[in-house]
């Protein structure tokens, strides 16, 4: 697949002939320098955006030709996200933030699942806290609980430790990989931390818009 964006009068190629397959249950790290197109690739794989040319299939379903809503419906209950900047809703408590994807998937047991997920990341005592009352590490743990609460088949993580100090980042990563193992989910991780990438089964390097196996 290819991805171009129109920057001024000249089109800018971000991804140029990417061909990759990620198997169910696999853990894959995408690394590369800043501006190499890592986050763009992640958003295309997750169906948040469509390629300029080529095709993408998510969980066996072709995304090409799908509307924004059809892609959203595909994600609901199947895909989980962990963002670099946590992306918790400020007006929602930790519990309510974690309930959100379960509610969106239309499942009735949102609260029970959310409580369980928060217990797994060690935040049972912080259920009713708002994001601003939590530390950065705690916020990212809530985000991880949210990602797993819907029991997704595929988990996308965008620089999950990018906003955390080393020690906190390490704890968050332990949690992420631990939960992923127990749920047997597919994990696609964007990072420029080589040590973090090394924990994945496969590492893909993006350079000049093209993928190179490490």
């Amino acid at each position, binding site marked *: 697949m290819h991805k171009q964006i129109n920057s001024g009068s000249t089109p800018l190629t971000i991804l140029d002939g990417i061909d990759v397959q990620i198997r169910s249950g696999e853990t894959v790290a995408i690394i590369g320098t800043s501006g190499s197109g890592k986050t763009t690739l992640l958003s295309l794989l997750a169906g948040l*955006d469509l390629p300029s040319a080529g095709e993408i299939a998510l969980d066996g379903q072709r995304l090409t030709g799908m509307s924004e809503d059809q892609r959203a419906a595909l*994600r609901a*209950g199947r895909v989980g996200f962990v963002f670099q*900047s946590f*992306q918790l809703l400020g*007006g929602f408590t930790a519990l309510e933030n974690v309930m959100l994807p379960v509610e969106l998937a239309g499942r009735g047991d949102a609260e029970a699942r959310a409580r369980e997920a928060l217990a797994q990341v060690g935040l049972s005592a912080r259920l009713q806290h708002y994001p601003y009352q939590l530390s950065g590490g705690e916020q990212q743990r809530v985000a991880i609980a949210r990602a797993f609460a819907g029991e997704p088949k595929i988990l996308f993580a965008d620089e999950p430790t990018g906003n955390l100090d080393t020690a906190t980042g390490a704890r968050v990563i332990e949690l992420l990989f631990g939960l992923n193992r127990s749920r047997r989910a597919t994990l696609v991780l964007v990072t420029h931390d080589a040590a973090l990438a090394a924990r994945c089964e496969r590492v893909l390097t993006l350079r000049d818009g093209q993928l190179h196996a490490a």
Partner: protein
Amino acid sequence: MRHSLRYALHRLRRGWRSGDLLVLALALAVAVAAASAVNLFTERVRAALDHQSGDAIGADLIYSAHDPLPASLAQAVNASGAHGVGVVQFASVVTRGAAMSLASIKAVSDGYPARGSVTLSSEPFGPTRSASGIPARGEAWVDLKLWTALNLKPGAEVQAGNAQFRVSAIIVRAPDSGGYMDLAPGFMINADDLPASKLLTPGARAQYSLMVAATAAQLHTLGALPVPAGVRRTTPQDARPEIRAALQRAGQFIDIAVLAATLLAAVAIALSAHQYGLRMRDEVALLKCLGARERFIGQALLLTLLLLGALAGAAGAALGWLAQEAIARLLAGLMQIALPPASLLPLAQAWGLGLLMLLGFAVPPVLAARRDAPIRVFQRDAGGSGFGRGIGLAAALAAAALLWLQTGEPRLAAEVFAGAMATLATLALLSWLLVLALAPLRKRVGASWRFGLGNLSRRRGATVAQAVALGLALHALLMITVVRQDLLSSWQKHLPADTPNQFLVNIQGDQRDRLEKFFGAHGYPPLELVPMARGRLVALNGKPVSGDSFDDPETQRWINRGFNLSSADTLRDDNTLTGGSWWGNSGDGKPWLSADTYAVEHLHLKLGDRVTIDFAGQPIELTLRSIRKIRWDSFRPNFFLLTPPGTLDAVPRQWIASFYLPPANRTLLRELIAAFPNVTPLDIGAAMAQVRGIIDRIVRAIECVFLFALAAGLTVLLATIQGTRRDRVRETALLRALGASSSMIVRGLLAEYAVLGLLSGTVAALTAQVVTWVLADTVFHIPYGPRPLIWLTGALTGCAIVTLLGWLSLRPVLKTPPTVALQTG
């Protein structure tokens, strides 16, 4: 300074392009536009109405004195470009054969009346016409009282002084007749006949007047001239209490509309500035990291706002000017009055008002951002400046100053301020309770609704703040649309179609039964007969007084004319007790007195004072027991002085009656005069039609003024909704990434706004009811009861407006692509 100016200009351009400053600019422009349009339009309408009510006294200005007016006065009037008409009025006897009557003789010069016109007819109750000039030499126009008293016929010759006059017309109405209580029969002649008639002997008591027709500018010039000693200056506002009452009430309505518009615009400015301040915090932290000092940032932010204020203020002033011009043109035909041109002063005032609002409501919250700690660059939640006490204090001070400027009275301003604060507190409390009540509902509704309701009850603080702002706007909208209608129509209903339009005066005691039978036989409802005794003030608290004991010429004239007193045991609803207590049934026969505030002010009375009045040689000492305020625009017989029934039984009295005569039944008056020759009917229909016409025009003008308050209210709604825009973008992107469909996001948003609108509409209906009731009771003195329908109207209107505005302004946000969730920090 140069650097901060450059940064400010840059920030202004960027804020404009990104839309960050758009709502603030809009709020400011609306505030200035509303204030300038209202100020300009009100000034023009007031000037026009003042001019219009010149009809009420037959001139825009009257100079009068008991001696011939100094020639310098007429010269000054001519020099100003205005036009003056001389009138001399005095009492003399008019005879026809053996019949004679005391008459009030008015000798008029060419150009009389200066404003309005005299209405004439050729026979009693015959067809009427407007006079085209003044009586010709040797001719006289008489009123119905004199016509009846002398048993005249068309063309009859009468004698006045040494001269013979041919009666050529009956005066139906003259603009300068002294209202319906002017009882002396009228006789109008050409002033050129005066010397030959020898009617006016040296030393005779006469009133010399100069009636002036002038433009607003000429009036202004004349107003600045000193009034010679012994000369009285009367303007339409000093005359005719019923017109004065109508104009005063109109002013109150307009003031309320202006206040509502200003306060709402202030809320919109405060809201959008607060939001802008919050958005500036990251940038400020970054600037500090890069080495910018707080002083530089403060200067830059202040300059940004001042530049924005100057631009938005100018745009607002231009808009206001155009708007008032458009309204004036739109209403020109409808209002049937020519508006004088607008002056530039109100524009400057409105611009100054905008600046005050900017300094009070926008500058403090935006400047608060300059104190943000640079560490915020790393930790967004660190070093918050929040909503400081200083910001609240500045806003409160600015609000107080605004109210003071707009009302011109510290006490009224304080009352309105307290009322506004109480309204805000009530809105907040009720919203909070309703949000609490929402929480259990969430579990019983579908996913979108649950999300919408959840958004509301989860962000309780933000929801309450939003509901208060929306509630305030809706409160104003409700007051402006629904309640305004109620208030204005109750005012118009002051003069229902069957308000008495005829007074009967000079009814003798033994004629009352016969008169009642006469009206009964003609199918009229029972007459309201009011006794009236005439007396002269002779002593106050035992000390002899006369007209000369008072300096004020108006008081002197009133005392010299004599007092009309009546008796009553009930206080009618057009009288409001302002001091002492009403005697009710317990006063029968007691020497007690109740006085209108006019009498209290002019005679310097206080409760308990003893007033001695001489009734044709019988002095009676009366003690002041209560003070009343008469609503003169009720058009019912009212008296400055009242006693309990029975007190004046021993003195000579006559009775007054009022009734409604349908225009088609005018022949009844002929039968009445034939059966009761001494009874004089007075037609007050024309005066009532005049007041009604003024009220109708004012109501239309007020409706236009209220439109600006409406625009200000809508800006508050917009500011409230726009304030959540950034959060919405982020949320929408996240929800999409997590798998929500667009229809679900739209439904959630609509549900949220529908419930928010319903909630704030309900709360607003409650406060609008209470505030209107307080206004009706304390300011307008208009009966006003609860309106159950307003609850439904309020809730549904709130729901519809908030949902629609929310959807319109957030529709682009709903298209946010999910990739934004990966980009925003």
